[in-house]
């Protein structure tokens, strides 16, 4: 299956893929192209179909209908062991009866690669994932982060054209997770292959991906780069799931924008100012009462009740303000201002 790479052919294509488990429509009509060398993330809440999509790429699961192509070849009928992809499992799935080196060499051992080459490549992999000298340990003697790296090395040693990662950082603590995010991204750049990454953590998705697809109820809501998804959410679901977003609709929307429909605005784009202050050119504005103030150290979150109904969350950095300053704002009337370009139309009536 390893031919020359044709950049015009997607590494992975989903063509109207559906996967039904009896009544449950886990994946309900997915069309998607992932290109060679991309770090592509499937983002969504649990049960949104992202893991099922990954499992169908790996071959652990088969579509009920539709087609999945790897580098242009329909693989719907191919078993996992005949596909040029490798997987990093959520629970790592390291073989407990083998050493770290044996785990990493597993794919080569199956392919009957000669022992000297096998050993050399295992050492290279241990180097790549920064675990040199740990080859003789058993997986049970490693920490969670180390197991994670072994799982990565075991998948990468086969030099697949696509690496699938199923929430690989889910079991790690925050500090380690942030460190591994950077490391994973570096490794991807270093080996230059396609990474397909499944996560429910929107921050992780935004940090690591070249592009991402947001899943909901077995369908893709939006595909785009992190900044496209964040700055211009296409649906109210994306606006709410990726980052925090204010959705304005009804009378308030009509009052603010002059149009009826649903609009989204990110909390950090809104400025709070004095109720009498002037409205600059190209800005939207409204008046509301501060109902809640949450001081979070680096920044403060305000909840502002609008006169025409609904409320807006506003986040302000604490540039000069102390907690005493911000807390006095509670209960006061304020003017909210934001640049019209930050507003995205979710639905226009």
């Amino acid at each position, binding site marked *: 299956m390893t031919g020359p790479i044709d950049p015009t052919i997607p590494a992975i294509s989903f063509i109207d893929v559906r996967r039904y488990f009896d009544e449950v429509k886990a994946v309900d009509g997915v069309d998607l192209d992932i290109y060679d060398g991309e770090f592509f993330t499937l983002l969504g809440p649990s049960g949104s179909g992202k893991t099922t999509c990954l499992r169908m790429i*790996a071959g652990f699961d088969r579509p009920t209908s539709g087609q999945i192509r790897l580098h242009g070849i329909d693989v719907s009928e191919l078993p996992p*062991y005949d596909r040029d992809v490798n*997987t990093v499992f*959520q629970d790592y799935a390291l073989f*407990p009866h083998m050493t770290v080196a044996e785990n990493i060499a597993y794919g080569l051992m199956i392919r009957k690669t000669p022992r000297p080459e096998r050993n050399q490549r295992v050492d290279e992999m241990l180097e790549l994932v920064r675990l040199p000298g740990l080859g003789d340990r058993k997986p049970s003697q490693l920490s969670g982060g180390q197991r994670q790296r072994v799982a990565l090395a075991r998948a990468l040693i*086969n030099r697949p054209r696509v690496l699938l990662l199923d929430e690989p950082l889910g079991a790690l603590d925050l500090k380690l997770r942030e460190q591994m995010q950077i490391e994973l991204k570096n490794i991807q750049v270093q080996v230059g292959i396609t990474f397909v990454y499944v996560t429910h953590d929107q921050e992780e998705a935004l940090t690591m991906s070249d592009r991402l697809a947001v899943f909901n109820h077995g369908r893709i809501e939006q595909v785009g780069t992190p900044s496209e998804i964040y700055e211009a959410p296409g649906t109210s679901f994306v606006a709410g799931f990726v980052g925090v977003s204010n959705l304005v609709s009804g009378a308030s929307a009509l009052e603010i924008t002059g149009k009826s429909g649903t609009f989204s605005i990110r909390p950090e784009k809104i400025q709070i100012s004095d109720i009498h202050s002037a409205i600059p050119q190209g800005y939207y504005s409204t008046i509301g009462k501060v109902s809640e103030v949450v001081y979070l150290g680096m920044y403060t979150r305000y909840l502002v009740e609008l006169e025409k109904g609904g409320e807006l969350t506003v986040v302000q950095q604490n540039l000069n303000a102390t907690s005493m300053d911000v807390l006095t704002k509670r209960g006061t009337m304020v003017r909210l201002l934001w640049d019209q370009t930050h507003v995205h139309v979710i639905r226009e009536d």
Partner: protein
Amino acid sequence: MIRRLSNFLYLRPTVFLVLMLALPVFWLGVVYFGSLVSLLINSFFYLDDFSGIIVRQFSLRSYSGLFTAANLDIFQRTASMAALVTLMCALLAFPLAYYMARVAGKRLKALLYLSVMLPLWSSYLVRVYSWKLILAKEGIISWLFKTLGMTWLLEGVLNIPVIGGPSLSISSIGIFVVFVYVWLPYMVLPIQAALERVPISLMEASGDLGAKPSQTFRKVTLPLVFPGVVAGSIFTFSLTLGDFIVPTVLGNSSFFIGQAVLSHQGTSGNIPLAAAMTTVPMLIMGIYLTVARKLGAFEAL
């Protein structure tokens, strides 16, 4: 009242522990271990041949009495039967356990579980005797061979020395079949439990890394389930070693260890020799477990 008792015990975990463990420790220590010690002590006494009285003095005479040609024959017969029964149980149990643990749906699994367990709920003696009828010359198996016009095959097999006999119900084949039948559940259940403990993701990972199902089975499934097979084989092997009912019901005059022990301590009243003979299966089990350990059977535990 109950609340005060609960508080009292909660604050004194040691007292609670002692109360909880007293009975099982007594049972294990005194009843179980004590009888074992008494057995060992008895094995070092001997029966005076002339007076027929047990001499309570330390002696290895009973042990040396084990090494007669007839006894060695019994040990060999019993151990090979136990080994063959264990092997056959493992071969039959593995696919069944695999099906139960990995393939069958909830309802079917419960049904299979029940059918494996069900025989254990009825009397073992009744089941052995019903096999006697099944295997008898006038039984269903002979009838089946006759109907198919293959009586010659059955007779041919029964004419083979050592394993044959006048009919299936008086032959080593019969003993083998019934042993496999009665001990099979003890092999199925540990293997099934071991299979259930192997995460499916390990098998998926193996396939993902290029292994065909047969390779996954050899390299991943079997090594991880092997402790379960060993656990099951400890049951089937030791139960066969000590059993005296099946060979009595279905055998001929060639004794198994259990029968020999029974006749020594019952008929001839030679309790020291019976006790010494009982140490033989223990010794065989000891060797068996050591070999299993050397083979790495317990490493994946």
